C-alpha cells in the first residue's frame, strides 16, 4: 500500500511450509491480526509494524532477521550516501 512496492522481503510462505503447512488463518490467530493482513504481508503488498514483525517471527520460533529482509533500491542506496 502506498508509495511503490515495499522493499521489505519475507520468507513467510516457506516458514509456513516448514511448520507443517501452517495455514494463513492459523498464523493470523497466533500473531493477532486478520488473515487478510497475513496474505498482504506474505505477498509483499503490506509492510507490517515492528511489533507485528516480531510476533510473526515469534510464531515460527525464529529471529526476525530470518523472516524479513530488506533490499535497497537504487534510489534508497543513493539517498543513503
Amino acid at each position, binding site marked *: *500500500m502506498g508509495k511503490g512496492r515495499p522493499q521489505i522481503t519475507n520468507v513467510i510462505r516457506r516458514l509456513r511450509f516448514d511448520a507443517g503447512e501452517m495455514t494463513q488463518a492459523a498464523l493470523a490467530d497466533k500473531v493477532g*491480526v*486478520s488473515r*487478510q*493482513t497475513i496474505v498482504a504481508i506474505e505477498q509483499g*503488498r503490506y509492510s507490517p*509494524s515492528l511489533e*507485528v514483525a516480531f510476533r510473526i517471527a515469534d510464531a515460527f520460533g525464529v529471529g526476525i532477521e530470518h523472516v524479513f529482509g530488506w533490499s535497497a533500491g537504487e534510489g534508497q542506496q543513493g539517498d543513503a550516501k
Partner: protein
Amino acid sequence: MSMREVSAICGLLVQIAIGIWFFGAALSGQVAGETVSDAAARVLWAVLAMAVITIATTILGAVLVSIVRRGEMPDGRTDERDRLINARSSRNAYVALSMGIAGTLIALALGAIPVVAVYGVFSAMLLGGIAETVSQLTYRRLG
C-alpha cells in the same frame, strides 16, 4: 471476500442509488420551485434512507455471501492494517468533502440560488462517502 468488503460494496451501491434517485428527481424537474427548507428536508430523508438501506443491504449481503461460501464470513478483527486503511480512506473522504463544499461556496459566490447550497452539501457528503468506500475497497485489494 471479508465482511468489511461486503459492507463497503453494499454502502457504495446504496450511495450511488440514493444519489441517482435524489438528483434524478431534481434534474427531471419534479422539484421545480423547491424552497431551501423543502430541499433540506428531502436531503435529511435521503440521509436517513441511506443509513437504513445500507444496514439492511449489508445484512442481506452478508447472508448471501455466507450462503454462497457455505460457511461463516471471516471475523471482523481489526488490526493495524485496517486502522491504516481507515485512516487513509478518511483522509481521501475529507479531501472529497472539502472539494464539494468549496465548489458549493464558489457556486453561491457566483450568484447561484440558495437551494443550490443544499444540493451542494448533499453532493459533497455523497462524494466524501463514495471516496471513502472506494478508497477502502482499493486499499484492501492493492495493499
